């Protein structure tokens, strides 16, 4: 129906829809994806994987990111329980592919934010954000620069990637971040909240380029 309408009408309809509606619509078919691509051109510059809120955000330079979709796994977190219990309809599902793995997700909607939450099995909890991220980049025609916001305490849920472009992270343990930097390459900028950590001169952290450190000391 939507694809048979005139161009202006299609754009008027899309204006009334939210970002997550555009995302789901873009997953419907190639023609629908092209329509969303055309509509969202120059509206967003990049996307962010936010592990603080477990959401993927779309960002325009100079503005805060807007949540598109959240993800959650069966891995227990107190907030997961409230999110899980607030949903009653578990009939909706969606399938993503990442590294030849089929990730089947159940869909619920956040009671206050109104955005969808994609629930996956625990073993896919690191793959799912990357799968969603790549889909979002494709649908919204955004360059696939990987930007991640996370806290070292949630390293077990860090997305399944060895290379990141930009990262904002917080850490209380210096060794933990040094271990992290051995496994992951940061290609562009790092913003690091060090807390009370004290860095030695030969620390790997100091070899980072375009780095900004925050510390109360």
């Amino acid at each position, binding site marked *: 129906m939507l694809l048979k309408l005139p161009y202006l009408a299609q754009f008027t309809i899309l204006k009334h829809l939210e970002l997550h509606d555009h995302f789901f619509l873009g997953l419907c078919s190639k023609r629908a994806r092209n329509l969303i691509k055309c509509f969202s051109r120059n509206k967003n510059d990049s996307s962010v994987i936010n592990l603080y809120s477990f959401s993927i955000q779309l960002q325009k330079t100079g503005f805060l990111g807007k949540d598109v979709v959240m993800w959650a796994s069966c891995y227990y977190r107190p907030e997961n329980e409230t999110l899980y219990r607030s949903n009653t309809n578990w009939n909706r*599902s969606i399938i993503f592919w990442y590294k030849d793995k089929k990730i089947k997700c159940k869909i619920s909607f956040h009671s206050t934010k109104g955005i969808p939450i994609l629930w996956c099995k625990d073993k896919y909890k690191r793959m799912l954000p990357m799968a969603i991220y790549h889909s979002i980049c494709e649908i919204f025609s955004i360059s696939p620069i990987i930007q991640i916001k996370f806290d070292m305490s949630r390293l077990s849920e860090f997305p399944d990637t060895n290379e990141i472009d930009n990262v904002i992270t917080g850490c209380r343990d210096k060794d933990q971040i040094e271990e992290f930097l051995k496994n992951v390459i940061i290609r562009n900028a790092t913003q690091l909240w060090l807390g009370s950590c004290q860095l030695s001169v030969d620390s790997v952290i100091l070899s980072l380029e375009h780095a900004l450190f925050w510390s109360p000391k």
Partner: protein
Amino acid sequence: MTSPASSSEVKYLIESSEGNTFDVSGAALRQSNTFNAMFLNIGADGPIPFTDYNEATLKKVFEYCEHSVNEENYSGPKHQDDLSKWDLNFFNEMDQKMFIDVINASNFLDIERLTSYCCERIARMLRGKNTQEMIKVITLPTAEELEAKQKVEEKKAAAAKKVAEKAAETAEKTETLEELPVQQLVQTTRNKLTRKYLSFSNE
């Protein structure tokens, strides 16, 4: 009949794709920017042809125009909750096909208010849905349906190929059949003639 006068009493004749004509008031037609640009100042002799749209669609569009004649000038989209009871009934009566037709017609006629409300209604149908539900709303074929459709097309192509092959075979056969009787005819006439000749010579 039609006239260039700008009085709201003036009626214009509209011709639909079926060739049927019906009256629409000048005031209602003036809500269409396309009409304003094309006919209002110069007038129209005879019915105005909107032959890309069927009668039901045009009547629906102009029914809305007639109703909203006395409403204030359109200033951006209204929230659906602010719509009057009449408006809600009007939109609820329409099915998906009618929505498409009405949007197409109102888009051509450039009736901003109607196009905007129809689009808002469709957006409402899509809002908060997941991919499968959206596919149902926008009536796109699912992957299974596409596969089934492909299979049917393959079967059709195979059947058409068989028919073509059979036709070619029968054509070849008829060619040989057509050749045979002529040869046979020649042969039989030759035989008859020789027999006659022989019998004549014997006599």
